[in-house]
């Protein structure tokens, strides 16, 4: 169970406002996070990953406290090791597909399983610049899963892809999440695209 009860001041185009979220995510559940532009969806994911600090509140994952403003606990992103799929993918231009995965994990059998499930075996020596948009997207997801995260955070992972590719990738993701069990939070602008994948919806 991931329990989030936080508040953080965010800047939007029409001034400052408070992002307040109080929600629990069941283990191994898949939740889509929706809301209008500027509502703080991306900020919410970064708050969980430890990339942005909440002003107040608590974040607990299982028995572990990741953040508690009263007890002054704030685990670094390195200690939280949340899997994060960035909207711009954040692939490393200098690394090949294989180097991305070995940078994330030493677990060879897992890497091979990920490559097989993600259909990326033929591209292990390719750098991001030589991958298609869909392949880059898949690599970003595989890299996040390679760290065997307790929680997978995805920031609009399908927004840059066309309809056909999106449907194919969502099917792939579904299979990946069945194999590699993790709690998953997906920010999306088009909630309907995750019908059949997401079990819950959180609106912020």
């Amino acid at each position, binding site marked *: 169970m991931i329990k989030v009860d936080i508040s953080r001041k965010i800047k939007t185009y029409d001034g400052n406002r408070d992002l307040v979220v109080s929600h629990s995510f069941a283990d191994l559940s898949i939740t889509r996070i929706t809301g209008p532009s500027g509502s703080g969806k991306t900020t919410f994911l*970064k708050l969980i*990953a*430890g*990339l942005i600090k909440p002003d107040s509140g608590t974040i607990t994952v299982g028995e572990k406290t990741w953040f508690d403003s009263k007890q002054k606990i704030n685990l*670094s*992103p*390195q*200690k*939280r*090791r*949340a*899997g*994060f799929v*960035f909207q*711009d993918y*954040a692939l*490393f*231009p*200098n690394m090949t597909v294989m180097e991305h995965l070995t*940078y*994330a994990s030493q677990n060879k059998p897992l890497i091979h399983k990920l490559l097989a499930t993600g259909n990326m075996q033929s591209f292990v020596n390719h*750098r*991001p*610049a030589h991958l298609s948009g869909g392949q880059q997207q898949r690599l970003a997801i595989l*890299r*996040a899963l390679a*760290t065997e995260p307790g929680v997978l955070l995805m920031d609009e992972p399908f927004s840059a892809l066309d309809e056909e590719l999106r449907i194919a990738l969502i099917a792939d993701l579904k299979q990946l999440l069945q194999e590699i069990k993790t709690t998953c939070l997906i920010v999306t602008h088009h909630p309907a695209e995750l019908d059949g994948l997401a079990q819950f919806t959180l609106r912020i």
Partner: protein
Amino acid sequence: MELGPLWLTVKLALITTIILLIIGLPIAYWLSKSRSIPKLFIEAIITMPLVLPPSVLGFYLLLAFSPQNSFGKWLQEALNIQFVFSFEGLVLASVIYSLPFMIGPVRSALNHLPVSLKQASFTMGKSEVQTFFYVLMPNIRSSVLTAIVLTFAHTIGEFGVVLMIGGNIPGVTRVASIAVYDAVEQMNYPLANIYSLFLFALTFVIVVSVFILNKVSVKSPLE
């Protein structure tokens, strides 16, 4: 003609570049991380050698390190280091003088990298040092190379600051640019011409290589 000044110039530029590479990269990273008022002042001080007359910088270094003043005296008595009229002094002055040439390109390149690269590496459990060497540095390689070449070239072109703190001691502080000045003072134009030609050729090759580097960097994987 003696080769001493030419060798001294190359030696000074090499040592300065190596020292600046070691201290410049961490400073550039630190400056690229976030902005604050104290940082702004430090950045301004680092950038000053770009606009300050070299003689002014040399004058203050001379004052600071002169054994007649307290700091210079302490350096000499406690640590047996003398920066005035010595090769060590030239190195120190060059490091300060060329600092912006190493830090500028590297800091600017780091600022242009998407912040998500660093964040992705952090969420994978990698420390700042690991992220710096495995993710950030390899993706700004061409800018680091440009900074190295510019630092080297700028050190070769030094005159005022070197003359102020180092003087004109053959084999110790008489670098090629000073040898040119010295030869002209003695009306020995052929000798001045040889040193000048060497400096001209060397800096020309360096500037051309910077242009080639920049052309290559346009095709970098980030583009």
